């Protein structure tokens, strides 16, 4: 059995080797890099099933104070690995578009780093998943953030990509400022940075509720930004739209998943402070409700699919936050909040990646990312159309797809907490979701295509898409593998569920 950190080390090593290979080789074809990366990441993913979970220690001065290889983090590491693999596959499909947006000396020039940087991002995501200390969390989070700054602005001949890069940069740095200030306050209140110790200290603090709430808010702001919670969501639509599509997929899945886990871990110490609990839950509920409404309703009039997925990503963040906001109720119906969030994110990964995979292929072939470019897709490529139907159904929460269990768990959480207001919002937004997701289905099947050339799908993409479809159905029927993986080692997050 391998220690959990071997995963990060392997990915990092892969990144270094490829970086060196890229700079020293004279080959103009960079696609090989991506293929090697995908292949190796596949192996690393396989290795992840042979790692022993190793929760963090609290021994003073230990290396492992910062790093927890618990079951939940392992699941999130796998999510990160899978996302990276899929993103690389998308990147390959996207190459022709990307090449035009780069000031390249020759065809394919400059795309090498586009395949390698995600590996470092992946490392960051995995470290984030394991971070149980504020310092570690900060470092990992910034690793992810900075690599995303680069990736978002990567297509620098594209005004949109640059604009997205700048917006992400400024707002991201702003949120970093708040996170840092929040960490400062947490440290200031407790003198500790390790979550467990912070929790202990916070629980025994008396009389400084306002300061604790202030610290909580600062962290909420910082991480709320990362997970696209209203009112810190404004970067999401613009950045998602402007960024190269594979990067959008990466942002929307990888970054969000890791941030949510971190959010839960940071939240836990605050939930232990009974005197502030009602206010914390109230604010969480407000944020969750606003996110639900904003994401799902603003998606209704969207015509650009990429933007629509951005709003939908806000909407899904809303469901996740809703689940978290219902954390306070005692006794779980099905599973804890941590498991709910974990499963939801896993399902979200499958369906979002599938949607982006199809979007990438269609946009490359149709020169656009509007819904109208999907018109008549069922005639141009029945396979892609079907894949998109699966993705959209799953996102909308149709049963027997992975997305449904996620919604199911969230609604269970809501009802358990007797949050009737959130329940009403949930019902409205699910209805809205049916509309905007099915608009894509309608476009693909009801309307005539703008152009009739059939879309060819590369074998690797075909395999990826097929696997994603199969997984969506499989986990839509049997979620047990994910759920039990999330529950095996009862991590701190699961404790937060009660």
């Amino acid at each position: 059995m391998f220690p959990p950190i071997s995963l990060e080390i392997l990915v990092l090593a892969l990144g270094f080797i490829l970086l060196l290979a890229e700079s020293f080789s004279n080959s103009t074809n960079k696609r090989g890099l991506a293929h090697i990366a995908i292949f190796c990441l596949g192996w690393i993913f396989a290795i992840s099933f042979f790692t022993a979970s190793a929760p963090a220690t609290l021994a003073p001065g230990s290396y492992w104070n910062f790093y927890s290889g618990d079951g939940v983090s392992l699941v999130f590491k796998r999510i990160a690995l899978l996302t990276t693999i899929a993103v690389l596959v998308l990147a390959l499909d996207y190459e022709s578009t990307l090449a035009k947006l780069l000031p390249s000396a020759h065809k394919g020039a400059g795309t090498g780093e586009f395949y390698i940087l995600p590996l470092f991002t992946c490392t960051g995501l995995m470290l984030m998943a394991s971070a149980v200390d504020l310092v570690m969390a900060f470092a990992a989070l910034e690793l992810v953030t900075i690599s995303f700054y680069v990736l978002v602005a990567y297509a620098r001949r594209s005004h949109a990509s640059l604009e997205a890069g700048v917006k992400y940069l400024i707002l991201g740095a702003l949120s970093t400022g708040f996170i840092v200030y929040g960490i400062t306050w947490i440290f200031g209140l407790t003198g500790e940075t390790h979550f467990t110790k912070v929790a202990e200290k916070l629980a025994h603090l008396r009389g400084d509720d306002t300061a604790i709430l202030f610290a909580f808010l600062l962290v909420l702001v910082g991480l709320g930004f990362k997970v696209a919670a209203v009112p810190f969501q404004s970067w999401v639509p613009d950045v998602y739209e402007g960024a190269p599509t594979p990067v959008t997929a990466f942002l929307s899945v990888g970054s969000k998943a890791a941030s949510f886990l971190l959010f839960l871990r940071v939240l836990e110490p605050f939930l232990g402070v009974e005197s502030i609990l009602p206010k914390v839950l109230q604010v969480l509920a407000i944020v969750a409700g606003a996110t639900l409404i904003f994401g799902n309703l603003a998606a209704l009039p969207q015509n650009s699919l990429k933007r629509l997925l951005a709003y939908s990503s806000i909407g899904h963040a809303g469901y996740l936050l809703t689940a978290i906001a219902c954390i306070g109720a005692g006794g779980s119906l099905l599973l804890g909040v941590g498991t709910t969030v974990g499963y939801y994110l896993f399902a979200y990964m499958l369906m979002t990646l599938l949607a982006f995979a199809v979007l990438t292929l269609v946009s490359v072939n149709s020169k656009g990312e509007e819904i109208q470019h999907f018109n008549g897709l069922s005639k141009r490529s029945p396979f892609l159309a079907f894949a998109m139907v699966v993705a959209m159904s799953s996102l909308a929460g149709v049963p027997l797809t992975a997305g449904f269990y996620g919604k199911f768990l969230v609604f269970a959480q809501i009802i358990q907490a007797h949050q009737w207001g959130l329940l009403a919002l949930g019902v409205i937004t699910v209805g809205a979701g049916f509309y905007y997701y099915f608009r894509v289905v309608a476009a693909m099947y009801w309307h005539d295509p703008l152009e009739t050339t059939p879309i060819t799908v590369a074998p690797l993409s075909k395999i990826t898409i097929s696997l994603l479809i199969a997984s969506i159905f499989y986990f839509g029927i049997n979620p047990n593998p994910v759920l039990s993986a999330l529950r095996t080692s009862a991590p701190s997050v699961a404790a937060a569920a009660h």
Partner: protein
Amino acid sequence: MLTTLLLIPIVTAAALFLGFGNRTWAKGSALLQLALTLALWFRYNQAKAGYQFVFETNPLFPGVDLRYSVGVDGLSLVMLLLTALVTVTAVWFLPNLEKRANLFDGSVLLISAGATGAFLAKDLFFFYAFHELALVPTFLLIGLWGTGERQAAAWKITIYLGVGSIVLLAGLVDLLMALPVSSRTFDLQALQQLGAAHMIPAAAQIRPWFLLTIGFGILISLFPFHSWAAPAYASAPTPVAMLHSGVLKKFGLYGMVRLVLPFLPDAFHQPVWGSYTAQDLLLVALLGNILYVGLVTISQRKLDFMIGYSSVMHMGYIFLGLASLNLAGLSGACLLMFAHGLSVAALFAVSGTIRDHEGSLRFDRLGGASKSVPFLGICFAMAAFASIGLPGFANFASETMVFFGGFSPGATSFQKTATILALWGVVISAVYMLRAYKAVFLGQPTATSAKWTDLAGSARFALALLPLTLLLGGVFPRYFLGYLKPTLEAALR
């Protein structure tokens, strides 16, 4: 065996989507489904109550009793038979398409699979899931091959039902939450036993009751949540209209019988508004279906809308049976689900055929069709008479039970009044059905209707299957009741 029944349409649909096979496969699949259903029907042991042919896997959620499990009892058998019969007819009424016929056929089979799955499921989750799965093909088919304002109709049905399902989901979860933690389970049989044990205090029943009734109510087009139904059915391609109105819509009612009645019986008697109880509220809503929608039906000027609204109206009777909370009414309601499914499917089959001939279903453009298409005329007449509750057809037997149920000892005076008012609906339905029948089939043949060609070949048998089964059910309701009674008695206990 039950999983096979479920897999037949799914596998065939998958094959069709992948480009294998053709229309014959769809027909074969439907017939196989019917054959298997009949085999179940005859092999089912009526003497033993409860689920039979059960198959179940290990729990899918760690620590939660949620699993893939299928089984049939009398009620689900009746519903499965309905599904299989309507599927056979629907498959024979698939339109001739030049392109993408496989997509159409496969989607129709998927709708049937959704219904089959919902009725087979012995697990609450799969019961819910299969029904909603059928939404997607419905959406595709109505929007793609429907008529009239098909896209608007497709949107309406999808969003309406989507919202309905989510309310329903909330209700289901709330229902489970009302149980003590240790006894929470998704197994319908176990749930039924819990219901019998009165696990939920009366006061706690009213909220899940509302959520479930509204959720199911939207799916069943209970007044005032009915406005999706008629436009959707009017626009839908014939097989979709048949399957949806005939089979899929019954899911909600089936759910009411399976969940609301055994679990929340006391909720019916809880006052919700002044001294009026939840039951009274339901009665008012269902009178809305019967009287209000009935009158709206009279005002329709097109056959497809008329049938669509009539189907909404008849939901009121089924609800009346449910609301009576006794064996007579409930048996009537369940048999009426079966009967109404068959009759409305037959009506849609005929109206779809006429639309193919004429291109329009406006009453003022039609007339005298019995001259050129007597077979269609007879089938329509039988189905129409069945649907207005003429003796000899199963609908009458069920409606009789429903009415007697509404008047049984223990019925409140409000209930009795409602039943009498509902009885007036019988007159209303006769008015519109006869008007429609006369407008389409009687009178002077129009220039076009004289040239129509009647159904021929195997399609005749497929269509005749429905009214003949209705006759069987009307003459020997006891035969069907034998299947239903033990289940329903258990549900009412």
